[in-house]
């Protein structure tokens, strides 16, 4: 259906754009790249299937050589680097985040936070940490230790993704494809 295709393509573009624009402010003074929030938003805004497809489309474009990952990274090289686990986990994270927003009947903000947390952190790290362990010849525990400095930032990003999702629901009721009757 055209509507699905359009949403998937445009949100893949949105993820790319979030890697290309200057960083946004976390809380005054601390800049973050918004791209990983874009991944979570694909799930929380578009729902599980469309969200995952949008992220897959984005990754496909990165793989064919477009420098769309934040920092201008791209090409096959990023899939050969230690963070490959996270890349593989991205579409799964979006799927889980979307699933939670679609199925759990809590208010949008809470469901989106749960989705962004469970999808964007738990599931994502479940792919990312083993990936690093394999690529760096380290144990899972050691790889997990390597990943922990990024946890606080990602937690806050999950919170922001929830705020953004909730904000969209407030600013335009019915706009969320993950909550069609809202």
């Amino acid at each position: 259906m055209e509507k699905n295709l359009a949403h998937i393509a445009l949100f893949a573009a949105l993820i790319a754009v979030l890697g290309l624009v200057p960083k946004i402010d976390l809380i005054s003074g601390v800049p973050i790249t918004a791209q990983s929030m874009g991944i979570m938003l694909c799930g929380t805004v578009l729902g599980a299937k469309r969200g995952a497809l949008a992220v897959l489309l984005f990754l496909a474009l990165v793989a064919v050589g477009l420098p769309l990952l934040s920092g201008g990274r791209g090409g096959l090289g990023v899939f050969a680097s230690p963070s490959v686990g996270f890349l593989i986990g991205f579409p799964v994270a979006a799927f889980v985040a979307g699933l939670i927003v679609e199925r759990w009947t809590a208010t949008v903000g809470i469901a989106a936070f749960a989705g962004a947390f469970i999808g964007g952190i738990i599931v994502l790290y479940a792919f990312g940490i083993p990936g690093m362990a394999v690529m760096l010849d380290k144990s899972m525990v050691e790889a997990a230790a390597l990943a922990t400095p990024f946890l606080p930032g990602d937690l806050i990003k999950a919170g922001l993704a929830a705020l953004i999702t909730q904000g969209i629901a407030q600013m335009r009721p019915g706009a969320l494809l993950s909550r069609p009757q809202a």
Partner: protein
Amino acid sequence: MPDHAHTGIRLIEAGYGVAGHSILSGLSLHLTQPRIGIIGRNGSGKTTLLRLMAGLIAPTTGSVRVGSLDPAHDRREMLSQIGILFQNPDHQILFPTVGEELAFGLRQLGQALPDAKAAVRAALAQEGRSHWYGAPTHTLSHGQRHYLCLLAVVLMGPAIILLDEPFAGLDLPTQMRLARKLAGLAPQIITISHDPATVATCDRVIWLEAGRIRADGTAASVLAAFGTAMRRLGEADADTDIAG
């Protein structure tokens, strides 16, 4: 209406270029009149000039001053000096309710939340729109959203307001209302447009072409020349050159 000599925007041989490509060059202007229009075709550099005056970008040559301040570097001071209204309200509205949207600028100026809220309520009451305070922004019509963005800018009390194509996409009654509202505002207003009708009532009109000043004078004289040139262009054939 007072002359704005001391807060007026001054450009001294200002220019702006990106990647070796010059968009604006050799602009020397002292903008003091209460109502100024900047007219030019699309692609003439007028929006870039607006951003330069507002301090959103810094000149690559020459300088821009507002009073004694450099708008590109003294951002905090500039917030209360210059207000900017962009073309598309949907690119400007950040909050779900009118009250929050209007309070944003005041908070950024340093006001505490209760003071900002009170000021917003007072302003809305003065406009006869008290019932807008808690209204969701998505329930506003296009014209009302435009109005909301203008109000948000005016509320910050700037001495100068820059308008980018203020009437674009508005139907006639909305245009008339907006024009009436603008005419009554105290700050200096500088309007950018491609449409002569928008700037016909300005005290001074500057014609920008290919990043340079082609004419600068009264509305009547500049717009007459502009109109003639545009008609001549319109009668000639297509626009076949592709940039870059």
